[in-house]
């Protein structure tokens, strides 16, 4: 009787385990962070891209304006893919584009912009990648939509056309 009871429990445990593994199979094992979190913009102090003057984050983000901060690098291939969408976004006057140049050198980065066009209103450079960590970023490319000093939406990986439409909807 007792052993029957134990076996029954055992079978139950295995059935539950099976179901959980079955569901687990469908989950992705790649980390996907929440992209809709409202978070304060982290403050930073970075060198400007063009010259060595220091730019403080508080000076950049004014309250009643939309900002689109894009982490990019000339060596990053997906960045080339998303570039055309950034150029389209540049035409929208309601939003300002901030570029965060990630682990790049000036020469390569400026020839990248010369070739493909410069969508940014302002570029700051993150030579060693530490500022991106403060933003909770994973790598390049990654972008943040900012309003009233808050991150309202986050885009991991290159921007696609749908993302562009979504941004235009959000800032209307």
């Amino acid at each position, binding site marked *: 009787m007792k052993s029957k009871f134990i076996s029954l429990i055992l079978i139950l445990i295995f059935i539950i385990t099976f179901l959980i593994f079955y569901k687990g199979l469908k989950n992705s094992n790649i980390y996907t962070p929440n992209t809709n979190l409202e978070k304060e913009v982290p403050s930073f102090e970075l060198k400007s891209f063009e010259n060595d003057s220091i730019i403080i984050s508080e000076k950049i983000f004014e309250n009643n304006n939309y900002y689109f901060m894009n982490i990019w690098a000339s060596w990053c291939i997906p960045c080339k893919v998303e570039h055309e969408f950034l150029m389209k976004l540049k035409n929208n006057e309601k939003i300002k584009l901030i570029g965060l140049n990630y682990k790049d050198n000036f020469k390569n980065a400026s020839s990248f912009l010369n070739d493909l066009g410069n969508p940014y209103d302002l570029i700051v450079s993150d030579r060693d990648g530490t500022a991106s960590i*403060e933003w*909770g970023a994973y790598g390049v490319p990654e972008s943040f939509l900012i309003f009233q000093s808050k991150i309202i939406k986050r885009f991991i990986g290159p921007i696609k056309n749908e993302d562009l439409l979504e941004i235009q909807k959000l800032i209307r």
Partner: protein
Amino acid sequence: MKFIYTFLIVINILNFNLLKADEIKTENEIAKNLRCLICQGQSVYDSDSEFAISLKLVIKNKIQQGMSEEEIYSFLKMKYGEWILYDPVFNKNTYFLWLLPILIFLVGGAIITRKFYYKK
């Protein structure tokens, strides 16, 4: 407490190298306890990805700014979520994780001792 602080500062001034060695040690310790988020099952310490190299730099800077190990963990947890910590926090999500093995150990011990006899 104050005594220890002054003592530490004196050591600080006298022996910069020693402190540096300690810093390296904590730095490595912290990096080993963090998951490299863009890698497959690697710690930040083990990984050589751009993300991991930058994160190691951040850890180094934070230590030099005087942040403690715990503060760095909570800073990163805030930025990246619990997924980044290799040492799971003990909370309601992880009660079973920490206690189930111990429970199994105790049950095992109980089963074995019930089979014993002591009389000679």
